């Protein structure tokens, strides 16, 4: 016998009305979804309060999960080291990766310093981070690349602040709750970071491809050749990111730029630092933003 259908509950009027109103509410849900979708597509910041409240509520539990992630990463690294050449090799490789990035950043900083010194004296090169926190979640099942940071307005985080790990730029803060914040990762397809080559200052834009890589587009491509392994750092244009944060290395050069690998894997970093707004830092140093963009444009 076929199972009894939930649509025909028999002769009870009450049950029939119940079924009918169930379908009415379902249709209302369909309509409400459409209306909400149109509203939130029109303005992406719509309902951000609702989202932030939800993230704030889930943040304590997610923080515990993030701690577990850190420990699990350590366990996996040790096992991987055992199966390759022992855990020492894994540690050395990490150190080399870090050193390589720091070398690229140092080279960029050196050039930057020379240019800035020619113009004026900047009081502070490395601003103190606003706060350090864990990334406690990411939209791993959506096509958008957001992460949730375990710090919010209570820790001084503000919209637009750059988020970085020791290895390089992770993203920037998009929405802030009281104890959590939504971070737009640099691999999201909406994210665009002005960058320059660490060695010679060749200007480009790094936009996310949503699959974990970045697309580098050269601004002035005349005669410029990108090679596998070229390191790119932020150029400081646009006033969002301070110059000299490591971003990516070129993986596959293409005709009009290159596909690059971001240097900081947000999944492998334990803590990330939230840096103050670069424009604010410039203002406090009594420096017009145009002056900072000028040397990088060379």
């Amino acid at each position: 016998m076929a199972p009894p259908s939930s649509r025909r509950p028999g002769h009870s009027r009450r049950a029939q009305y119940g079924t009918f109103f169930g379908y009415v509410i379902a249709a209302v849900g369909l309509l409400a979804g459409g209306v909400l979708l149109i509203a939130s597509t029109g303005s992406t910041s719509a309902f951000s309060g609702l989202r932030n409240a939800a993230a704030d509520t889930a943040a304590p539990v997610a923080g515990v999960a993030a701690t577990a992630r850190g420990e699990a990463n350590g366990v996996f690294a040790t096992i991987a080291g055992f199966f390759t050449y022992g855990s020492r090799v894994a540690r050395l490789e990490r150190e080399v990766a870090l050193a390589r990035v720091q070398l690229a950043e140092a080279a960029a900083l050196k050039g930057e310093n020379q240019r800035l010194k020619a113009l004026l004296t900047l009081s502070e090169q490395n601003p103190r981070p606003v706060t350090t926190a864990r990334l406690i979640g990411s939209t791993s099942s959506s096509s958008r690349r957001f992460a949730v940071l375990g710090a919010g307005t209570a820790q001084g985080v503000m919209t637009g602040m750059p988020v970085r790990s020791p290895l390089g730029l992770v993203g920037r803060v998009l929405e802030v709750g009281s104890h959590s914040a939504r971070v737009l990762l640099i691999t999201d397809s909406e994210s665009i970071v002005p960058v320059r080559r660490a060695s010679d200052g060749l200007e480009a834009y790094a936009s996310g491809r949503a699959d974990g890589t970045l697309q580098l587009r050269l601004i002035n491509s005349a005669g410029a050749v990108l090679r596998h392994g070229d390191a790119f750092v932020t150029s400081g244009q646009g006033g969002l990111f301070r110059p000299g944060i490591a971003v990516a290395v070129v993986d596959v050069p293409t005709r009009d730029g290159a596909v690059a690998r971001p240097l900081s894997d947000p999944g492998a970093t334990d803590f990330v630092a939230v840096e103050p707004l670069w424009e604010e830092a410039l203002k406090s140093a009594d420096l017009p933003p145009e002056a900072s963009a000028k040397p990088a444009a060379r």
Partner: protein
Amino acid sequence: MAQSLTDSLHDLTRPRINRAPSPVVAIGLPWLLVALGSLAPFLPLIASAPVVPPFGLLVLIAWQQLRPGLFPVWAGLPLGLFDDLFSGQPLGSAVLLWSATTIALDVIEARFPWRGFVHDWLVAAGFIAANLLLSLQFANHSGGSTPVAVMMPQLIVAVLTYPLVARLVGHFDRLRLLRIKAV
């Protein structure tokens, strides 16, 4: 008297005069499981590409195929809203898609009362694919520009994960009707 865990579990499933399933667990557990699936963004994993299957949706489809009528047809509205809060999609995306999914699953249930494993899997695969691709469209309209190819690994993983999720839901369905309430 020492009793093993399976024995005591079996005791709880046996019909007894003074024990009944708790209505809170029997009705609340499916909702709770879907909500937990929607919290997948808080898994201890920071992904740089969409790789994790949409667990909330998978659990919702699995419950509806295992126990048609357990969720009301309007279940997509509250559950979708909860999913939207965490998924990173524009708000309303899951409300719309999940509402459409629950209504369509109800129609399919009325049209094909007898279904096999393969039938269920194919239907679920169709719904998963439609949901993922339409969510991609919605996300792209609200600022992204992700190519469809990026979603393919996630789609394949989600379709292959579905039988496992359905199996898990089956196990929870047995827990759901444990006779834990004294009458």
